[in-house]
């Protein structure tokens, strides 16, 4: 009984469960509907794009989401605040630390313990988040280059990402889904020798980044495929709520780490790169990728400053307990709270409603950055070529786990 196959194939199942928006009678005589995905390497997960095209020209794109929907918000309504953290990890699985950071920050602010955290905890948080940001940008740039047709950068970047993943595994015990940042502190202090290993890694990575720039950003084929493609004007980007490297690629210096200055980011010196239209127009696919690559440099700067602080001012002591402020019972006062933070993909926000009577949020909504960024795809790709659609989709850098939640 347990092994019985429950699903019976029926021809109209797909038509009923996720019908196309365009019917045959809506199309003009030369137009065609083609489904891109849900299983397609360039969609970076399970996303289905219903593409209406006329010859090689894209007329309309309708994304169909939900193939990876795991009811995060419904689960969150039945779990205590601290037990939601692993679910938050699984939203954006390429940048789990960043998501965790935003989430725990929100709960701490609701509890009113955010200002009491030891500085060492804050610096460790920023250190691991920035490491994770680099790893995430590596996947973004690597897979993007692969979409465009360059295979080598992917291998080189995954090789370097491996160093980061091993370091984070050393600290937290997991390679991708960490559950390392806790409400009120950390799971553990950094392992002994982590700071030295990390400094070594920064020294190793700098020349590799120069290689990356030569291999991808200055590559003639890459420039031909991405410059002047998918140009996103700033007013449209703001109207769609697009954030992160996409918005900065369109030329607005808007980074929540600077704007809100949360955690210890206000004490750290770093720049916010924006798109300048070096090889094409401001806001094209090349600019968005360029912002990501330059952000890696900035993240390295942040990591170096954190390492200095962690080895001098806030160095390891025997008395330091990262779980000192972890509350036994997390019960915020009744309130509505919206917290946001900068993940590699943009603004990740959590809306909480606490009722003041239980340890479980009454409502926890995740404002996912990719979900919002993806909504602009049809606006960007209309009138372009099919090949450009792939280039645009890659430059948005979606993680379907976060889109569908």
């Amino acid at each position, binding site marked *: 009984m347990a092994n019985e196959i429950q699903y019976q194939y029926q021809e109209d199942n797909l038509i009923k469960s996720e019908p196309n928006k365009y019917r045959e009678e809506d199309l003009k005589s030369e137009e065609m509907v083609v489904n891109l995905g849900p299983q397609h390497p360039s969609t970076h997960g399970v996303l289905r794009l219903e593409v209406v095209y006329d010859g090689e020209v894209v007329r309309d794109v309708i994304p169909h989401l939900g193939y990876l929907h795991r009811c995060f918000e419904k689960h969150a309504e039945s779990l205590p605040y601290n037990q939601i953290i692993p679910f938050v990890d699984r939203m954006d699985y390429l940048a789990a630390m960043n998501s965790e950071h935003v989430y725990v920050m929100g709960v701490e602010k609701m509890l009113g313990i955010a200002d009491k955290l030891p500085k060492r905890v804050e610096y460790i948080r920023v250190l691991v988040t920035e490491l994770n940001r680099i790893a995430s940008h590596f996947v973004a740039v690597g897979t993007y280059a692969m979409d465009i047709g360059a295979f080598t950068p992917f291998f080189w970047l995954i090789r370097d990402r491996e160093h980061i993943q091993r370091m984070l595994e050393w600290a937290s015990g997991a390679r991708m889904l960490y559950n390392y940042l806790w409400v009120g502190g950390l799971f553990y202090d950094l392992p002994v020798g982590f700071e030295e290993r990390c400094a070594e890694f920064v020294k190793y990575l700098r020349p590799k980044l120069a290689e990356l720039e030569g291999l991808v950003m200055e590559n003639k084929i890459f420039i031909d495929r991405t410059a002047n493609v998918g140009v996103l004007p700033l007013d449209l980007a703001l109207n769609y709520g697009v954030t992160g490297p996409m918005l900065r690629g369109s030329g607005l210096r808007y980074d929540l780490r600077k704007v809100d200055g949360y955690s210890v980011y206000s004490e750290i010196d770093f720049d916010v790169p924006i798109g300048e239209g070096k090889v094409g127009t401001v806001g094209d696919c090349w600019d968005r990728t360029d912002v990501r690559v330059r952000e890696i440099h900035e993240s390295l700067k942040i990591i170096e400053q954190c390492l200095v602080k962690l080895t001098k001012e806030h160095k390891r002591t025997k008395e330091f307990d990262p779980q000192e402020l972890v509350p036994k019972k997390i019960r915020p006062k009744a309130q509505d709270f919206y917290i946001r933070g900068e993940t590699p993909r943009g603004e990740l926000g959590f809306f909480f409603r606490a009722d003041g009577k239980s340890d479980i949020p009454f*409502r926890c909504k995740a404002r996912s950055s990719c979900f919002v960024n993806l909504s602009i795809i049809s606006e960007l790709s209309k009138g372009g070529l099919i090949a450009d659609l792939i280039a645009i989709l890659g430059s948005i850098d979606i993680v379907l786990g976060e889109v569908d*939640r």
Partner: protein
Amino acid sequence: MELDKIISLLKSKFGDEVIHEIDENASPKAVVVGVADIHRVCMELHTNEQTYFDMLSCLTGLDNGPDAGTMEVVYNLYSVPFEMGLMIKVKLDRNKPEINTVSDIWKTADWHEREAYDMFGIKFENHPDLRRILLPADWEGYPMQKDYQHQEYYRGIKVEY
């Protein structure tokens, strides 16, 4: 611009009864407006040069349960030039949750409203394309409602696991 200035601006424009309640406890601070007023309030906040809320960060649907008999829609606005946020809350009747769309003001609302419709069954009037977004089109019921009972079978697959 402070919250009281925004409130007085809205009151001078639409009359005193436009603001039902002020929630200073919320972060960012919130105002509660009526269902009928939401579109013109948002339009005013979006276009007025003194407020200029050019970004809709988040739109949340919310169900208070059958006992309270209300649903809510929460708008989180943000103004990039003035660096300020504002929360707007609207209470809806749970038996007939209908509200005007703001997707013509901010395109962000398009997908967020579809999600709220998908999860709570809130109908957004004048929305250009109100379909389910995350769940399959033939799913029964609205899962985020507090009294939701899932269907027993979906396509012959047992839903309970």
